[in-house]
């Protein structure tokens, strides 16, 4: 037992291990001040929903209150470890400013009301709009914080009941590109890899993936490999000097917006040197010759001029990747939120395909998720797809879904892909979406170009329903606010990026009249009296477990087959990876093991899209590729970003996620240790840029783009020259104005451009042209964390440490001993 300040040491104590060995167990525990483990009344099983790792943990309950958390030793994902967000974030649940009663707008002000009144108002407005315009007037925008049961229920009621095509989740902002890239390459969403690939890989390439901050426990796994014998080589592609970059064998810091050129340069070298598996390509892939042709245009010297990365470094990187025996590739926002997002992510898939590095231990691709339940939004029909990976442009799939729901196929809109959120905002702007139901997310801070978003959400003609646990910036603009229960206060399942399904059980009651999201959706469906084609209630379930059983039926025979999983099976042990069915009763660690893909035209989830225009392929075009069970290699040329630096805006602005906060700080901003670790917004710039702008560490600066400006204190960091970085978590809920800037903006999205990747429809947050200017001398250094990518280039006189009650107990077990396993 040892106490650790896990703000100061985010990744905790090393437990080194060698290639192929099992990752040792280390159980992390954090309890409320004054509470010890033996005083806890009971421990309730769940997993984290504050990042996409899906760390399994138990909630400590004492006197019907949450008093702490402890990692689950036996779980395959984290082997007992927890990250700072897991360890401290739970405290937000008991914040005094939780929403406890429904609110509705009266004479411009939100006032308390009761559930009946609030729901009847929503139902009345829904029926009016259905009468006047039809279902095209109604849109749903959901979160990465719900459970599978809830997404599925929303999917059924929206697609099958109301018949609207406008359903999307904020997964759109995080990992719509992950899904798009997997669908392009393999005909289906779902990760080819497993987290255990880290135990086996000899080369791990992280593309635009600051894993140390976004998935700190997974990063711990890599750190433990690096500390053991025969460590893997690490490739890092990131314009910032992240913790990943610091330990990397090679760090490439390309100019933002040039990822496709960089990937093509790497592929040029890999193919040119023959570091490919010809037999695998021949047997298991189509489209290789087009790639071979395309990357000829990208020798390292050409790529150097586009990306500003030395040609020699590109060669060195390609050599390492090309000679890897077990290559794990991971991708995140640095690619997904940038220019040509899908095209770039697909090139990563191509590297693994042409090297034959799929379906074997250590050989994987993890197109990462940003939120733990992102996989569920994508599976259940909450994120621009039909449930259980059914293909909206395959009539047989729509008919099959209609059979599962017992509705007419025409009742399910499938005239085009389900509407993505940016398009929904446009429809709200032009007045054709007139009711928007936002659950558990905060578009007034998280979408690009906030001034525009605020102007859309505040239109009188838009009826805005917000379902949340706090009065977020978005909730403050709503016509009706519904108080929701959250993690720890309700039961359900969710699925992390490596297809591991966890059960999250209710530990305590929600505050006041707050209700689980599932109950809210069920109530809405009941009040609308949605029926199937036999006149029976459309939604036939009534609680989490019966919703899960219904969802399982929907997945039968589809790639994400859940039919072998039950709540009972998930209780007590570890998470289970889908597909889990009669053939794979224990779940499936890896998919595509035999080089067989789910890409057959009659089975695939998507026919794919043109990577530049985004136009969906017609069934015939897809069939012409002849992908029958094969992976699809898609080449792409480089296109410059839509906004490039100019005289007026000479720099490039990137935004991103950081270690101590999560999505608009709704919860993490209310956990004192996390808030103290990164209390205010900052801007990172390079030493050289700072000097040429006459700026010093801690000076207050104004960052401006054609959309607006933000004021932040400067941190001089190891970011590449010409680039500014703003963390995207900061909004206004804890400022005087509440939902918008009073004078100076501080939300990074005041500055970002309204533009998205045409294939994945994911907004581009990482290539705005910007300027910066000092507006006030600093009185000391910026408060940005020193432990992460925002580490200062030279000492500033202090280091980030925990403020109070940060002590975390880490219990280490020798290999084989395994604690309670």
């Amino acid at each position: 037992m040892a106490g650790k300040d896990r703000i100061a040491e985010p990744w905790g104590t090393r437990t080194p291990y060698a290639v192929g060995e099992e990752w040792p167990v280390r159980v992390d525990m954090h309890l409320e001040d004054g509470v010890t483990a033996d005083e806890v009344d009971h421990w309730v099983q769940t997993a984290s929903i504050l990042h996409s790792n899906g760390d399994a943990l138990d909630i400590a309950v004492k006197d019907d209150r949450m008093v702490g958390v402890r990692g689950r030793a036996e779980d395959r994902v984290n082997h007992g470890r927890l990250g700072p967000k897991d360890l401290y974030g739970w405290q937000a649940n008991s914040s005094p400013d939780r929403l406890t009663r429904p609110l509705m707008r009266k004479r411009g002000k939100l006032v308390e009301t009761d559930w009946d009144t609030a729901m009847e108002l929503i139902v009345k407005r829904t029926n009016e709009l259905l009468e006047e315009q039809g279902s095209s007037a109604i849109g749903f925008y959901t979160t990465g914080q719900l459970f599978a049961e809830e997404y599925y229920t929303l999917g059924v009621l929206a697609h099958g009941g109301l018949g609207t095509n406008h359903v999307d989740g904020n997964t759109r902002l995080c990992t719509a590109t992950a899904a798009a890239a997997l669908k392009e390459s393999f005909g289906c969403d779902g990760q080819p890899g497993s987290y255990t690939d880290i135990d086996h890989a000899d080369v791990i390439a992280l593309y635009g993936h600051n894993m140390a901050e976004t998935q700190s426990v997974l990063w711990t796994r890599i750190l433990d490999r690096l500390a053991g014998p025969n460590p893997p080589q690490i490739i890092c592609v990131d314009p910032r000097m992240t913790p990943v970059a610091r330990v990397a064998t090679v760090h490439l810091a390309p100019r933002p917006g040039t990822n496709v050129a960089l990937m093509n340069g790497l592929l040029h070298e890999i193919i040119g040197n023959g570091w490919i598996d010809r037999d695998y390509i021949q047997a298991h892939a189509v489209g290789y010759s087009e790639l071979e042709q395309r990357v000829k245009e990208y020798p390292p010297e050409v790529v150097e001029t586009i990306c500003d990365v030395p040609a020699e470094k590109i060669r060195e990187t390609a050599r390492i990747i090309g000679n890897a025996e077990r290559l794990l590739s991971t991708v995140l926002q640095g690619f997904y939120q940038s220019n040509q997002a899908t095209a770039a992510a697909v090139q990563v898939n191509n590297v693994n395909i042409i090297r034959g590095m799929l379906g074997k231990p250590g050989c994987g691709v993890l197109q990462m998720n940003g939120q733990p339940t992102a996989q569920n939004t994508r599976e259940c029909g909450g994120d621009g797809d039909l449930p259980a990976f059914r293909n909206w442009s395959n009539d047989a799939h729509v008919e099959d879904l209609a059979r599962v729901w017992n509705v007419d196929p025409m009742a399910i809109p499938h005239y085009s892909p389900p509407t993505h959120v940016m398009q929904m905002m446009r429809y709200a702007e032009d007045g054709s979406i007139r009711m928007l139901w936002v659950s558990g997310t905060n578009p007034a801070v998280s979408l690009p170009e906030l001034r525009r978003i605020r102007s859309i959400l505040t239109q009188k003609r838009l009826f805005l329903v917000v379902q949340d646990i706090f009065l977020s910036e978005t909730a403050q603009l709503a016509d009706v606010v519904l108080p929701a229960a959250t993690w720890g206060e309700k039961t359900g399942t969710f699925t992390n990026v490596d297809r591991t399904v966890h059960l999250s059980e209710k530990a305590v009651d929600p505050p006041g009249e707050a209700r689980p999201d599932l109950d809210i959706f069920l109530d809405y469906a009941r009040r609308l009296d949605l029926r199937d084609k036999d006149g029976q209630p459309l939604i036939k379930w009534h609680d989490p477990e019966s919703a899960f059983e219904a969802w399982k039926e929907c997945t039968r025979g589809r790639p994400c087959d859940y039919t072998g999983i039950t709540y009972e099976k998930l209780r007590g042990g570890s998470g289970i990876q889908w597909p889990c069915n009669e053939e794979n009763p224990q779940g499936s660690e890896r998919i595509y093991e035999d080089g067989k893909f789910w890409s057959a035209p009659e089975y695939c989830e998507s026919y794919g899209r043109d990577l530049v225009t985004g136009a969906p392929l017609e069934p015939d075009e897809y069939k012409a590729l002849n992908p029958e069970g094969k992976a699809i290699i898609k080449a792409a040329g480089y296109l410059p970003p839509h906004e490039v630096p100019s005289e007026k805006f000479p720099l490039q602005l990137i935004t991103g996620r950081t270690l101590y906060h999560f999505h608009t700080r709704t919860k993490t901003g209310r956990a004192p240790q996390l808030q103290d670790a990164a209390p205010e917004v900052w801007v990172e710039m390079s030493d050289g840029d700072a000097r040429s702008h006459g700026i010093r560490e801690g000076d207050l600066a104004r960052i401006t783009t054609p959309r607006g400006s933000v004021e932040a204190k400067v941190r001089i960091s190891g970011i590449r020259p010409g680039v500014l970085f703003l963390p995207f978590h900061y909004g206004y809920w804890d400022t005087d104005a509440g939902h918008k800037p009073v004078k100076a903006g501080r939300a990074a999205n005041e500055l970002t451009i309204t533009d998205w990747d045409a294939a994945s429809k994911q907004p581009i947050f990482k290539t705005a042209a910007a300027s910066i200017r000092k507006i006030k001398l600093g009185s000391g250094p910026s408060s940005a964390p020193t432990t992460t990518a925002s580490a200062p280039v030279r000492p500033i006189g202090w280091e980030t440490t925990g403020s109070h009650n940060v002590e975390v107990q880490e219990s280490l077990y020798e290999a084989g001993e395994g604690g309670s396993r």
Partner: protein
Amino acid sequence: MKLGLVLHELHRSENDLALELLEASERHKVDHEIYHVARDLAKWSQDHVRAIAEIGKQYGQDLDPEPRHEFNLAEKIRERGSDLLGRKSAPALLMLRDLREIYMKASGVSVDWEMLAQAAQGIKHTDLLDVAARCHPETLRQMRWANSMLKVNSTQILVS
């Protein structure tokens, strides 16, 4: 040989398509996907104009390699107009009309490339065939894009 004539016509129609894409882009600045993608796709046609002018020399055609431009002022006025009218639904109908126009013009260009490629094949002019083989697929992608945007937007625009 009437190849010169076809090249001349193709040069004109690619120029026309590029302008149509740019103008539609500006008119629908608040429909951001149309705005951005149409501009990307206009570059393909502009690139084709240069390629046609270059190969045209071999067929005695003196074609301007520079794609046609409009006055900048007109462009700015259209963009501003789009911003101002973005909250009305009438421009949405105009968008469908513009997408239809792009689709029709791109179809015309596609047919021209088809004819040219056939002729080039017949007389074994590989240079010309290469140009057609490089440009024609991009024209088809322009068509499919216009078609897909029509599919995505028609329902919402026409039923609301």
